[in-house]
């Protein structure tokens, strides 16, 4: 069995908003990566990944964030993260320096604007 995760996609202007809920670990990280990469049409400029509703991310998931950012970068597209200031995930995101690959915003509006 794999960890339960769900991605809901939404188009906002030039950005694709992906709301990631559930849990991501090594059992479903590659699935999440493929879904995110497949969600980006060529004309979009940014993938806004909202992890406000994500319950669990492990190092395999962090690796996915780096990889998605890298691959979007090659296409001149940007990965942005949305995570509220009080998220339990915050420390791990900082620790692993995800912000060097994807800017982190406190709200969806900030990330899009």
């Amino acid at each position: 069995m794999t960890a339960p995760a769900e991605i809901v996609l939404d188009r906002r202007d030039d950005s694709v908003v992906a709301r990631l809920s559930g849990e991501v670990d090594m059992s479903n990280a590659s699935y999440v990566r493929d879904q995110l990469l497949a969600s980006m049409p060529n004309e979009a400029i940014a993938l806004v990944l909202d992890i406000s509703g994500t319950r669990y991310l492990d190092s395999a998931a962090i690796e996915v964030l780096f990889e998605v950012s890298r691959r979007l970068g090659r296409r001149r597209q940007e990965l942005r993260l949305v995570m509220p200031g009080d998220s339990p995930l915050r420390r791990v995101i900082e620790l692993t320096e995800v912000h060097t690959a994807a800017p982190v915003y406190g709200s969806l509006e900030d990330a899009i604007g």
Partner: protein
Amino acid sequence: MRDRASQQAALAGLGRQALSGTAFETLLKEAAAVAARELEANQVAVLERTRDGQGMLARAGYGLPDGVLGGVLPPDPSRLARDLSAASSIAAEVGPRFGVIEAHSGERDHFTLADAEFLEGVAAVLGAAGERAGHEDLVRDSEAQFRELADTTPALMWMTDAEGDVTFVNQGWLRFTGGTETAGVTFAASAHPDDREATIRLWTEAMSRREEFRCEYRLRHAASGGYRWVLELGTPRYSGGEFVGYVGTATDIHERRTMEEALRASETIWRELADTAPAMMWTTDTDGLITFVNQGWLRFTGTTFQEEMGESWALGVHPEDAEPMLTSWEEALADCIEWEGEYRLKHHTGEYRWIHDRGVPRIVGDRFVGYVGTAIDIHERKTMEARLLEVYQREHRIAETLQRSLLPERLPPIEGVALAARYLPGARGAAIGGDWYDVLERPDGRVALVVGDVAGHGLRAAASMGQLRNAFRAYGMVEASPAEVVARINRLVMSGVEQVMATVLYLVLDRESGEVAWSAAGHPPPLVIAPDGARFLEGGRSVPIGAADPAVFREATAILPPGSSLLLYTDGLVERRDTPLQDRLTELAEAAAEARGELGEMCEHVLAAVLGQADPGDDVALLAVRPLPVVDTEISLTLPAEPGSLAQLRRRLARFLHATGATELEQYEITLTICEAAGNAIEHAYGPGDATYEVDVRFEGGELTAVVRDSGSWRDKRGEHRGRGLSIIEELMDDVAVERADGGTLVRMRRRVGEDRAA
């Protein structure tokens, strides 16, 4: 000013409209307009009292300021008048409960007595119409509720209107008869031609007296292309004291009926034989010695006349029957009274056949001269009875054994929940039902509970129950969503050869959060017994399994309040012919709310309170579960070295960490580090077969210690990713030690919980 005649004519017009069934809303508007005209009022308002009695809802009006209609006003009738600076006002009560109608005028300086009477008249018309409208809504609601229930119930059900015309039959009925019309069904269309007249007569009689209707007849059966015996029961239904029709059910009693008929047919033959055929006859003298047997007797025994004479009584009688038969004969002879007995007598073919033998004393004048007797062959009837009994008993025995062996003897001990179950077999002979319950622990750490009821009784139902129970175990392990589990089993059942129908409640419980998700396929709702009372979990309702394909199976979720128990049951607990289901459910909730103590006692209390002293008519299965507060200070797990085990590990840790009082952040970080170590163990596990890793977590004196041990060896870091995992562990734990040995790798981690840590 309008005169009295005009007012009376207006009132009569309004009354006619009310009687002709004009919609209540329209009538209210019309009444306001009529009152304004006839009273020369500037404003008229029809106000309905709100349920809490704290205000008045403006239902209709004439000349009202904008925004008043549909709004709630304080219960003070003069409010509107102030807006108008009215010179005079008048009001009347509409119905006993509804509200008031009021009129205000800015020009007239007073209303007359006739005006008051007129307004009272308008109010009376509206009151009566309002009562009727409310009553009709009530009937409509209860009928809709019945239809919903009926369509998710496997039984055959129908409903008529007050004239006795069928207005509704449920899906079960349509499936059985192969019909397509849900209304207008009659006995003439669906009953066996030979049964129609009698059935219609019984129905007409019951209808005319509004009595309960009860009839056994043969109903068209689409699947077999023939007819099957059903028992049909109809109950008059009333709404607000008024007869509104019948509601009824039909039950398949074909097997029982055909058995009974076979028995009856053989009895008829026996009676015909006794009446017409030359019986076996004999006579004795005063000492009871045989003096004569007739040809019929000799044809039966194949003996000669001489052999039968004298003390030949025990001759040819089955050894097991000889002793009791002779004893009773000698007792009768001693008193010269009538004697009869049934025993096995040797037939000329060599087999023993049952005969019924009867002798009466012969009196000539005043003198006893001996006995004359007749005997008849009752072998067919006798063996039929014995066979029938045997069939019943055997089937009952097998079904009971099967069912007992299929139900879990003891519920499996599952960490973190208390469980109790009860099973009561129904009181009817061989009619073992197909009820079952089961509990299993899912790989994601949630607990799956199932209670089901296979339609029908006896061996087949018990066997189907076993198959369904296993199917639920299998799909319950792999599918997380209750609706998907039920849908898959429905597909499985529908693809099978045998027709199986079952109602099932499948529920998954998260022990940590108390979150439940369930799907009720034609099954009554689960009951939550919370500290502040009992209530049913509504929603997630669908058709029974085996009813349709494709079918939509719904699922619903809820959170159990802390300290709650959950009660799952089969409809044997709540279904009773003489009481509406809704009332029985209410009784169940009330009984459960009073129940105290541990789960077993709770089950007993509920059974005693709901069923009373009487045996249940149908089988009853009851399953109770209660999530327990965590008290562990230690967990120790051995898990398969595969990524899927991580989710399971997280569930166990969540429960454990929650109990330590760690903050949400601490819980996440500790879970993450332990799972990162476990992830390493999984990545590096090697060797054929089932590799495993072990996790031990201990919480003592505010400090958490975790050890993750595997049987592989950690190779060098590959890329950034692995490095990241280890750096997460090191950053988030106070102390980390990695020990590599021949047998494998061991990671030991420590972290203080509940206080500020140095970064």
